[in-house]
């Protein structure tokens, strides 16, 4: 369990669901929030240090591995690592080619980044839930911090900030390419001219408004669904890991059952983390393909 044996299960869960937040306290001081309430009070101008740390660390891991292989990439017989990397690149490339009909050099690298990065971030879910938080607490305790107030959430994709950060990035690209390819007029026309069409002038304002609402919802739903789908899946998965780990404190029989359950859930989760990374990538490519497509 967490730092002390005296905490209750609900405290344990709450502790695991709180980010290590850096921001401005209501009294004007900048610092790390010691409780979930303090973190909430910091409002918008705060940063989840743990999410950012793991997110960037894993991003750099991805970049470093792929860059290293890319530097040594040759047309000769590929070695083990190059083979592995090329397999992923080929997989992404095939998917992009299958879903994206236009020509854009950004799409495939974007897909590769999304797939690998999200996969790595999701993969943190398979690290035992207490391992890294506990280590962090012990290390923080060495520096005199109260371990009860040291938070460490290791799966960045269970933080909606992370998933929304990426989906908004995709959304910006959707808007950018919609306007770049179709022009402002074309894009607005697409938002207002469909799905209801009319030749009668007096009906135009009504169809325009209705279309704008429908298409607007359609457009906004893209980044929201992207972010929430990933967040929801990973959050639920992590929650179950936390609940299973609670079994370890309920006697030897429950602990053994919990161990078996954790193994089964982890195996199942391997599928989910890969699938979610894949879905995020494919939907991004599809949305960008729609942004490039000329409608009539």
């Amino acid at each position, binding site marked *: 369990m967490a730092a002390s044996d005296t905490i209750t299960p609900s405290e344990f869960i709450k502790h695991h669901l709180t980010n290590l937040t850096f921001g401005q306290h209501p009294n004007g001081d900048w610092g790390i929030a010691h409780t979930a309430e303090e973190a909430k009070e910091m*409002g918008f101008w705060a940063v989840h240090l743990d999410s950012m740390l793991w997110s960037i660390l894993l991003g750099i891991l991805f970049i470093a591995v792929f860059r290293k292989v890319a530097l040594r990439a040759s047309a000769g017989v590929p070695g083990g690592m190059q083979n592995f990397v090329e397999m992923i690149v080929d997989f992404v490339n095939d998917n992009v080619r299958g879903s994206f009909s236009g020509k854009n050099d950004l799409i495939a690298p974007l897909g590769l980044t999304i797939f690998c990065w999200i996969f790595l971030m999701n993969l943190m879910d398979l690290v035992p839930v207490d391992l890294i938080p506990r280590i962090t607490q012990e290390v923080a305790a060495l520096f005199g911090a109260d371990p009860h107030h040291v938070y460490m959430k290791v799966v960045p994709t269970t933080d909606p900030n992370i998933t929304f950060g990426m989906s908004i990035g995709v959304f910006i690209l959707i808007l950018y390419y919609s306007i770049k390819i179709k022009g402002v007029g074309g894009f607005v026309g697409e938002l207002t001219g469909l799905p209801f069409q009319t030749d009668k002038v007096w009906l135009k304002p009504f169809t325009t408004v209705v279309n704008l609402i429908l298409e607007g919802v359609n457009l906004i739903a893209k980044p929201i669904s992207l972010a929430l789908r990933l967040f929801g899946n990973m959050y639920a998965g992590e929650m179950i890991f936390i609940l299973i780990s609670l079994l370890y404190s309920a006697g030897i029989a429950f602990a053994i059952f919990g161990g078996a359950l954790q193994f089964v859930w982890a195996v199942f989760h391997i599928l989910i983390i890969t699938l979610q990374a894949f879905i995020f990538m494919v939907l991004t490519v599809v949305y960008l393909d729609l942004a490039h497509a000329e409608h009539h």
Partner: protein
Amino acid sequence: MNINLTLFFQLLAFAVFVWFTMKYVWPPLVTAMDERKAKIAEGLAAAERGQHEQELAEKRAKDTLHVAKQQAAEIRANAEKQAALIIEDARDKAKEEGGRQLAAAQAEIEQETNKAREVLRAKVAELAVLGAEKILRKEINADAHKDIVESVANQI
């Protein structure tokens, strides 16, 4: 679970990683893979060409072998013909030689016969004269009756 500045930092990190991947990771990998693809295609084409050439060479070898066999058969037929010719020739020559030798032998025999006859004739004449001499010792002059004795001897 608060929405805060983390979102923007993530957005920024996302942009940087995508940019880096697009600039420094994707192109070399894809280039290498495309190059390898081209190389493999080339290799396959070369293999196919090689096979084709091998087929051609096999066909050529077969043709050459066929021609050589034909030539060999021809040469053998010629040789047989020539051998037959030589044998024929030798046989003719042998026959001729045999004939000649036979003729020579016959001539010699004839000569010998004639010689023997001549000697015999002389002997007979001598004997006749000797007999006549013995019978007619007195009255008969060998020189006077030589003509008669010779004509008798010639009639033998």
